[in-house]
């Protein structure tokens, strides 16, 4: 009974792990994959968001109503760099949107929307979570004073605080009540809903053509927002789907093998039942019901564990993305996954019983020995001992050995991949050199200070650096990070050249691979960008570079051309400072003064997002490691279960614990060695390069695991194998030898 309980426990553990993995993948994939659509629907996200310099609302309305296919629009005033304070929390870069009539473009996720009463504020959910704000609490807005928080909002047009600036909404009507109504208030933001979003491009062309008089036009489209968010979520979803498939394959192979072994063990009993008239269907049903008894609670526990492990981190990630948690929408998929986690082991149990019951009862009654084992491998027992025997016993079930080694190999490859990914994230976050940045410091100093800075000991080069945001003039959906240096920018930033050549004149630009792919740009093409000021800059693409900055949506342009088109770009001026090899960054920083700061990595600003991604990857890696451990233990246990008599005969002849461990070690080595080789090869040759392309096709990103990472994973695999050997050997040697030889 105890042995049977242990077997059931092991089977249940496998089902629970598979269910946990499946559900975890489902939660994250569904949340991230459909999050934007859900959020856009809940918020009634506009098709076009237009920002412009302040203009009278009547004039803006006149422009909008002249456009074709307009279903609705709302105008608002967006006030930036506002100080916000709640308790000890403070930010001086707040974004206050004064909303007027018309659709809101955000969803209220707690509390209620703004009324026309003064003193009310709706706070973005990400800000509320980060600051611990409650509905009914207060928020101090500079210029408006203390406002009562009436609700929390989510709008997926941008990521949330702390990835973006804190955003709150106040009512225009309330301000009118308090400060007196204005006849023709100034607005600088319009949200537009189309009757048919398929007409977006035509409307945009029309909007640009009829926008005469509006300054600083910047368009953001719903599809543009979606592209950016989809790319961020894509890596995680692909990883999780692949991992859940591995877990399912592992569980499927091992559960089917386990069920087969169990049926093999019961062949005599099946023969007796067949002899007294039991039908095949009845015997298969009995086996299925027994399996259901284990699978249903195990799948439930696994599914709940999977939800608990991932719902929290995913929910935090969704808040940062300004997207709602899936909630009840996830229920049908979860129920389907739960049913699948039950159905697979039940079918895996019923099928071999059905097949076995089809054999003649006389044959079944004759005994429950396994079929003839293969003469596996060139090893002879004269040269090797129990370890070789163990390997041969495992090798006798060749199909299962291959399937289990393959699933272990895939698991190993994915653990390696995640380690490599974590290293890459760390490197990108902390090491500007990983991005091709050659300057180590920045200083918030005017361009005129560059000559002086160059005289500071340890400084090799210093030049003004301009960085500003722009959008693609044609589709307006792509945001572009424009970087400019006077002269040769490769002294300070030299992202690898993919095609073409470096820019030479005032009319040329280098574009990142991400931008090149998004806009279909190649050397010789024209890059047309709309700058923050509304001015347009047209440059010939001289070359395409690999860059991770802004997802590769960058353009290196001559500073002269940028400043000529948009003199306000000099407002963002800073000095890039490159140090001499071996120079002390601390000494130069001290000499530069308080405005000096170290150069940041690509995702330095996205630390919370990276942290959430890391926690998800970590959770998945742990589950993956557990799947490996489970596969090894189950493989060992199956070897013992199927070769119970063999092991018992060995024990009868005097084999103690060490001998059984050596036997099992052989079985584990037969699994682990090919799995490790497969895992390393798979990661280095297939998955690493594939994920590098998937994750950042706009940059040459190495995701090949390092030797240290490979050594760590192989050591972990060996440790898992050792744990499996010791645990199963311990369980085996506790069994009575006579019982084992009887094979019952």
């Amino acid at each position, binding site marked *: 009974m105890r042995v049977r309980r242990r077997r059931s426990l092991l089977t249940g553990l496998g089902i629970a792990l598979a269910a946990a993995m499946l559900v975890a993948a489902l939660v994250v994939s569904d949340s991230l994959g459909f999050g934007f659509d859900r959020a856009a629907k809940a918020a009634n996200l506009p098709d076009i968001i237009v920002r412009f310099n302040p203009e009278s609302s009547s004039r803006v309305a006149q422009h909008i109503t002249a456009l074709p296919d307009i279903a609705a629009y709302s105008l608002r005033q967006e006030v930036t760099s506002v100080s916000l304070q709640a308790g000890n929390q403070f930010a001086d870069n707040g974004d206050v949107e004064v909303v007027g009539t018309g659709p809101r473009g955000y969803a209220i996720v707690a509390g209620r929307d703004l009324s026309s009463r003064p003193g009310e504020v709706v706070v973005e959910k990400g800000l509320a979570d980060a600051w611990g704000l409650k509905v009914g609490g207060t928020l101090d807005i500079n210029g408006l004073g203390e406002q009562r928080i009436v609700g929390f909002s989510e709008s997926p047009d941008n990521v949330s605080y702390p990835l973006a600036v804190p955003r709150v909404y106040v009512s225009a009507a309330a301000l009118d009540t308090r400060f007196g109504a204005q006849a023709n208030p100034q607005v600088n933001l319009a949200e537009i809903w189309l009757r048919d979003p398929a007409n977006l491009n035509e409307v945009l062309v029309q909007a640009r053509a009829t926008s005469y008089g509006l300054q600083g036009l910047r368009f953001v489209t719903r599809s543009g927002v979606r592209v950016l968010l989809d790319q961020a979520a894509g890596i995680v979803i692909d990883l999780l789907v692949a991992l859940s498939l591995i877990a399912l394959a592992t569980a499927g192979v091992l559960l089917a093998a386990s069920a087969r072994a169990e049926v093999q063990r019961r062949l005599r009993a099946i023969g007796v039942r067949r002899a007294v008239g039991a039908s095949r269907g009845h015997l298969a049903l009995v086996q299925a019901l027994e399996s259901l008894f284990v699978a249903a609670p195990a799948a439930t526990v696994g599914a709940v564990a999977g939800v608990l492990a991932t719902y929290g981190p995913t929910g935090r990630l969704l808040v940062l993305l300004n997207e709602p948690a899936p909630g009840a929408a996830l229920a049908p998929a979860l129920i389907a996954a739960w049913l699948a986690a039950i159905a697979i082991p039940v079918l895996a149990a019923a099928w071999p019983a059905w097949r076995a019951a089809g054999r003649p009862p006389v044959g079944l009654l004759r005994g429950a020995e396994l079929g003839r084992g293969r003469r596996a491998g060139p090893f002879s027992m*004269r040269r090797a001992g129990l370890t070789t025997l163990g390997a041969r016993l495992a090798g006798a079930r060749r199909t299962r050995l291959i399937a289990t080694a393959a699933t272990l190999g895939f698991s190993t490859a994915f653990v390696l991949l995640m380690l490599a990914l974590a290293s890459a994230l760390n490197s990108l976050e902390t090491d500007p050199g990983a991005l091709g940045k050659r300057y180590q410091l920045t200083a918030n100093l005017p361009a005129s200070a560059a000559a002086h800075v160059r005289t500071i000991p340890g400084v090799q080069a210093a030049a003004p650096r301009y960085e500003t945001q722009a959008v693609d003039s044609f589709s307006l959906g792509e945001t572009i990070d424009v970087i400019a240096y006077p002269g040769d920018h490769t002294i300070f930033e030299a992202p690898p050249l993919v095609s073409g050549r470096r820019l030479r004149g005032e009319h040329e630009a280098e574009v990142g691979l991400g931008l090149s792919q998004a806009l279909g740009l190649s050397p010789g093409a024209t890059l047309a960008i709309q700058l923050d000021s509304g001015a347009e800059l047209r440059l010939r693409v001289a070359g395409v570079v690999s860059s991770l900055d802004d997802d590769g949506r960058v353009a290196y342009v001559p500073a002269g051309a940028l400043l000529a088109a948009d003199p306000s770009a000099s407002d963002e001026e800073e000095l890039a400072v490159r140090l001499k090899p071996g120079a002390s960054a601390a000494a130069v920083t001290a000499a530069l003064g308080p405005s000096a700061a170290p150069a940041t990595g690509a995702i330095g600003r996205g630390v919370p997002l990276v942290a959430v991604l890391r926690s998800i990857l970590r959770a998945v890696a742990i589950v993956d490691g557990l799947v490996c451990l489970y596969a090894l233990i189950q493989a060992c246990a199956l070897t013992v279960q199927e070769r119970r008599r*063999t092991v018992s005969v060995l024990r009868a*002849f*005097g084999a103690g614990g060490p001998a059984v461990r*050596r036997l099992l070690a052989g079985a584990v080595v037969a699994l682990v060695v090919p799995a490790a080789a497969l895992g390393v090869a798979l990661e280095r040759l297939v998955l690493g390069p594939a994920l590098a392309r998937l994750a950042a096709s706009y940059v040459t990103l190495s995701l090949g695991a390092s030797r240290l990472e490979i050594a760590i994973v192989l050591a972990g695999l060996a440790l898992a194998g050792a744990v499996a050997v010791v645990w199963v050997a311990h369980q085996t040697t506790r069994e009575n030898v*006579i019982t084992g030889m009887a094979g019952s």
Partner: protein
Amino acid sequence: MPVLEARGIVKTLGVGRAERRILDDISLDVEAGEVVAVLGRSGSGKSTLLHLLGGLDRPDAGQIVLAGHDITRQRARALAKTRLRHVGFVFQAFHLIEELSGEENVLLPARLPGAGRDGERRARRLIGELGLTEIAGRRPHELSGGEQQRLAIARALVNDPELVLADEPTGNLDQDNGATVLALLRSLRRRAVVIVTHEPEAAAIADRVLHLHDGRLRAETAAGVTLRESA
């Protein structure tokens, strides 16, 4: 000094209403070079007695001394070592390992940790002596029952044990092969051999025949009257 000394062995099987004292105060000595046959009906407890004598199971009461070791007091590890060095088993179902050749099966106990040296040399000699040279490279399913049982006997002897325990060694064999196997067991010199069987033919080769009935062991006299071996 006997190779095997059993005193007051008691073993109960089953629980509750199904509980049954299958061995009741059994005592038995077996000397080196002696062949003892234990006869009894199916379910009389013959195999249970053999398992207890070989240290595969533990009695509820009593003492068993094997080659000078009190195996009823030994821990599992020491008991395994005693089995390895002092006991050889022959089973009715042969229990040869399918993946291994006949020779590899014979060698297997000699490859266990703690086994004495010369296992390989002894295995080769035994294979020769038992007339198995030609079939030693074949796998069990390619062999007849008699050949398999002879390989099993060679396996039982490969560590040169003082005691050989045979559980229904002819149970799966035809008459000719059964006779060959019994003759083989009879020919084992210097060793104590205990054969448990329900087949009276085994009695013909034994130095001493014991009957197990109602949990008690009785000796068979020349006059055919059974007496209690010990109590």
